[in-house]
């Protein structure tokens, strides 16, 4: 065999392999799209619809347009998406606010027990929120008896639990600060700037990329978070997307069509957002110390 033929063959094999992988990735999503347009509630199982199977009932359900004699639910499904966006945006912003100054101190200042505190941040955050659920539940329950808007069944209560993400992000932001040479800050200090001024005026402006990464990663994480949200939020009005979407697939009443339409409608913007910010995120994952 000639070398050029061999190369051609190798390329074809590689393409074939990648195409199979692509099919496994993309086909499930296409099937969900088809399911959302199909009459009735069947699990996703085909890429093709006969003309008599077409129906927009699931999309009408999701967009809260009346579509049959059955009354639409009191909580429109898009409300769940909205709840999720609020919770994710506020908790991600909160995490950045709370962790950035600490990351600065860890990166630039020398103090007692610095290494120990950093290590314990990393080890203690390995304790997943699901395991502390009983504790979170009891704590929120007793807080709610005195401060109603911060108790069980409230979005602020859920957000405050998600703020537990500070530890991982202190590490990520610190890792980025470490890569920025301190020389600029040195010269600002010589010119008489206080540490806080150098932090705000010099370090923060050049650190926008890492804040974007932290924001996007924690946004996506909270968007997908299921166990804590389902334990804390009891009424459909306060549900997040994760809890609401899974509620459509209860044991004896699986509304696959409704679920598919909701999944497409809410999954697409999040996915597009991620892909647009991909470059930042991948950079943040592969550089800077510790990941995930």
């Amino acid at each position: 065999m000639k070398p050029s033929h061999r190369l051609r063959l190798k390329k074809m094999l590689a393409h074939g392999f990648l195409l199979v992988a692509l099919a496994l990735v993309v086909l499930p999503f296409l099937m969900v799209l088809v399911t959302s347009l199909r009459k009735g509630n069947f699990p996703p199982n085909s890429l093709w619809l006969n003309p008599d199977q077409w129906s927009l009932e699931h999309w009408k359900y999701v967009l809260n347009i009346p579509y049959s004699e059955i009354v639409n639910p009191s909580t429109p499904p898009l409300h769940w998406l909205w709840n999720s966006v609020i919770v994710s945006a506020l908790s991600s912003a909160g995490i950045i606010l709370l962790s950035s100054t600490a990351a600065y101190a860890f990166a630039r200042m020398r103090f007692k027990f610095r290494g120990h505190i950093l290590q314990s941040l990393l080890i203690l955050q390995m304790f997943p929120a699901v395991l502390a659920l009983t504790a979170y539940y009891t704590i929120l329950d007793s807080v709610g008896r005195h401060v109603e808007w911060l108790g069980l069944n409230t979005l602020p209560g859920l957000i405050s639990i998600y703020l537990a993400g500070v530890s991982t992000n202190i590490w990520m932001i610190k890792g980025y600060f470490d890569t920025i040479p301190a020389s600029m800050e040195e010269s600002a200090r010589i010119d008489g700037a206080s540490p806080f001024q150098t932090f705000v005026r010099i370090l923060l402006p050049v650190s926008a990329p890492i804040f974007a990464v932290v924001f996007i990663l924690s946004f996506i994480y909270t968007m997908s978070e299921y166990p804590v949200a389902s334990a804390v939020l009891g009424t459909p009005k306060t549900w997040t997307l994760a809890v609401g979407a899974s509620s459509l697939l209860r044991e004896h009443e699986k509304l696959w069509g409704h679920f598919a339409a909701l999944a497409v409608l809410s999954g697409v913007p999040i996915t597009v957002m991620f892909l647009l910010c991909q470059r930042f995120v991948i950079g943040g994952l592969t550089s800077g110390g510790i990941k995930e």
Partner: protein
Amino acid sequence: MILPTVSPIRLLIAALVTLPVLYLDFLTYQSGNNWLGVVILGLLALGLYIYLSPRAYTFRYLFPGLFAFSLFVIFPLLYTVYISFTNYSSRHLLSYQNVAELLEQDSYIVPDTPCYDYVLYRQGSAKYVLLLVDQSNREQRFLSEPFDLPPGQTVHYPTLVKISAIEPSHSIEGEPLQIAQITREGLFIPLRGYQFLLPNGQTVEKEGLDQFCCRNKIWKRNPDSSFTDQKTNFTIRPDFARGIFIDEKGEQIGIGFRAFTGLDNYIKIITDPEIQFPFVRIFLWTVAFSAISAAGAFAIGMVLAVILEWKEMGLRKVYRTLLILPYAVPAVLSILIFKGLFNQEFGAVNEFLHAVFRFAPQWETNPWGARAMVLLVNLWLGYPYMMLICTGMLQSIPSSIYEASAIEGSNPLTDFFHITLPLVLPPLLPVLIASFAFNFNNFSVIYLLTGGGPKMLGGGSAGETDILVSYTYSLAFRSSENNYALASAIATLLFFLVGTLAWINLRMSSRRIVY
């Protein structure tokens, strides 16, 4: 470092922050949460010291992050450990104080006393009087002094109101209220708190919706914290070691309360066969699940990364973008989608397998089928992250190494196993361990896909695909027993296990990372 002195503006801001916190603390103290009050006061003092004293300058930066960390990570963790030493569960839900109060309130209708019909009169805008008519002798009537009924609010029980005898012909001022009206205006709620003191010394209170009767307390609290049944002189006392009330023979009476039980839960995990049997099986499956997930996702991610790094391939960018999709789509949605695709009767996977291979695995009812499904889905979810990491690693290997080996006539396979893998594996080991630890606690994929099922025979609430976290969750939240304490004990053990892994990981990677 320049240390700023305390400026008047800073003092003013500190005062403005301090005042509302002090007020909040006052409210906390008033509501009976003394310890919380002390903690808030302590935190306030700490915060003031940090933001005013030049010596604590560094901590001004650390405070927000470390404060949030203590509040949202360390505190719940310690609380979980604390619960694991108690018997907190649906049978021991309330504190001793609450259960004792409930016992004190237990009452019975005193035999041989009359019950009364009643009419509630409204006088003016907010005052009420009650007329009682003896059901056995309708000539016998009583009228209360005026009292308040704040709509919808509870009145502390028992609030005593005197009620005195009147002639049947006595006319009563005010507007009589119907039962429907009383309900609608939410007046029953405050009415429950009142007891009416008859001239003969008996008290009567609301019994159901339409009468007032004479009730007596069943239990009398003795100074030694035992309780005596006033009808039969039967005595029970609390057993704080077990969190229950017991009679003389040691039998449980009534509901239990929360008690400190020491190492009981941990001993139970080791010795109780009903828990030990599922625990060991679930532990082994958890290890296998995490190991296969981490290693498998790494292998797939690595192969894809190597192919996509091949410069002569076309369309690399398109492939890469689409192959990242499982990482970009919210995992909850993907997991639920796969639940549908793997549906045994109607799902796409079985339709395809049946059409092509005449073979339809039982993904939902067969334990091995369910395990295979969970693993397949988790690999699908996990490989893009590994692919991204591996791509980063591959790009950092200088191409001159490959050129050198090409001159010696190598082929791609030997290149991969003799150059790439040995170079890439050591720095990736921490990532693999982190991924193992992550999957060890990968609750969502198990819970949303199978709910832990199919059920494990002889394993109580355990399922064949349950990993330790999902088992813990169903012990606490899905079984009727709601065994929060046992769940917390397993959670504590899990934390030590995963914490050790994280610590080892840190040791290994600290060679690369400079703090």
